[in-house]
């Protein structure tokens, strides 16, 4: 009887200490942010991916992206708040191929379902790039920054161009 009573005393006492430690701790750790790992692709541990296995549009598209798009949409595809939209998992990047091609070819002239004031910069049309370059950069952004979508081919770009004559 006495023993049980003692135990009863100890357990709540112990839990108070725990609560206190917890509360103090939560006060210390607020504001700290855990760094999230960017390496999420670990499915192929048994069969290492070599550079040669990467589809060519990734390296070719990256060249175009670095030369003409990166300045605004940034290396991580995160864009610039209030100026240039992110290209990460957006409907325009992952969705209908022709809509994406229209944005790349016409730039800000393309009809986006969005208030123009949301992003204050202007994007020129990149219709002067060749079909191959456009296909590569479109496929690159559809498969970078955590995106995953079917690549776009040069013949799809050509077909879209002849449909809109640009």
């Amino acid at each position, binding site marked *: 009887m006495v023993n049980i009573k003692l135990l009863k005393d100890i357990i709540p006492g112990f839990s108070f200490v725990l609560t206190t430690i917890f509360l103090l701790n939560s006060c210390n750790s607020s504001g700290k942010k855990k760094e999230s790992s960017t390496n999420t692709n670990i499915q192929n541990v048994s069969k290492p991916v070599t550079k040669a296995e990467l589809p060519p549009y990734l390296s070719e598209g990256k060249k175009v992206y670095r030369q003409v798009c990166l*300045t605004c949409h940034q290396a991580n595809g995160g864009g*610039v708040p209030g100026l240039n939209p992110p290209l990460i998992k957006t409907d325009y990047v992952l969705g209908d191929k022709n809509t994406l091609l229209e944005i790349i070819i016409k730039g800000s002239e393309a009809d986006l379902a969005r208030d123009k004031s949301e992003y204050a910069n202007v994007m020129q049309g990149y219709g002067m790039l060749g079909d191959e370059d456009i296909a590569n950069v479109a496929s690159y952004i559809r498969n970078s920054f955590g995106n995953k979508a079917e690549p776009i081919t040069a013949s799809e770009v050509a077909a879209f161009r002849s449909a809109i004559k640009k």
Partner: protein
Amino acid sequence: MLGNTQKLHDLITKFLFFILVLLAFSACRQKQEITEGRADLAISPDNAGIKVPDGFGVIKVADSLGAPRHIAVNSNGAIYLKLRKPIDGEGILYLEDQDGDGIADTKKGFADYGGTGIYVDDNYLYASSDEEIFRYKLNADGEVTEPYTADTLVTDLVAYRTHATKSFTLDGEGNIYVNIGAYSNACQEEDRTLGSPGVMPCAILDSAGGIWKFRADKFKQSYAEGKRYATGLRNVVGLDWNFKLNKLVVTQHGRDQLNTLYPDLFDQKTSANLPAETMYIINEDDDAGWPYIYYDHYQNKKILSPEYGGDGKKTAGENAIDPIATFPAHIAPNALLFYTGEMFPEEYKNGAFIAFHGSWNRAPEKQEGFLVAFVPFMNGKPSGEWQVFADGFAGLEEVFSPSEAKHRPTGLAQGPDGSLYVSDDSGGTLFRIVYTEQ
């Protein structure tokens, strides 16, 4: 008897628990409220993550404010903030600190439009949308009590997609000076388009790309009633009236994209480091040269823009004014404040604080400039190089994309006691920097 003991025991247990929780919380609070020097101010023990010179401390006045742009503090220490976009129909916030610890306790809001500019004097609050400037009467306590009866001082200013915000300041003699940013990077026929030539002469300058002057006591003024006070300024976000000089001083956002638009003339590294961000003392009818020139702070010359035949070396703009101070490229001076307070050490008196928003146009190079800078002034001119005053706003050692930055300095204001307030339109935080030594 046994039941009573049990009850007492339970009570004591509960009481103990209560005390412990209280203790834990007060320890937590104390940590945030270590105060030195200035009596009851709740200076953050880690200065809210901001690095300031020895002897200074930082108070986090408020957070979760949306995107506060310019700010103004009235004579009783209450703070007005202009939001880029209204939240729940409120585009101006009013924060008050009731208990004197520096942390805002009450928040009110009004004005259903977004914008950047805000200014307060003894009788009125002034605020801008992207097209207009409004004036609100203050009551004896410095508070706006009738937000729906604002006077429209200025209206119908051009506002397109780019550089639409209307920063402004007053000269104490009833005049308003408003920046009308150029809706273009470098006045190309097609903006930001490879191979598109510069328009000659640049027609944008007729209604933008400069500072316009209006009266602070006339209603519904537009271009016909105002005056183009200075031209050739691409986009001025930070500006202030210098009462020592009795002149307007402005900071300009320099042009972007030398490399992406002229890859044959400028490599990515050069483009990340050119042109300078610039500060000018403005006299009436001055021309700072945009879009025909940009300022190269390595050569210390005004260089002909590539859109107008430049090659990075040819100089031009003989009639354009020279900057009085230059800063690294693309770091975006968003606010300018001449310090007139008594709180900070003597060397800060009459010098210029500049809130830099931090760059985006340095990519793929590392982004820079998420900081508040200081330029010492003597006899109305800079008396030394610019220096970093407050840093660490980004919350990261290296920033490659501005979306990673935790805070981006955007607005500055001086409190009646001489405190320096800094707003952040990315994290939505308001900081107050105080000097803690007597």
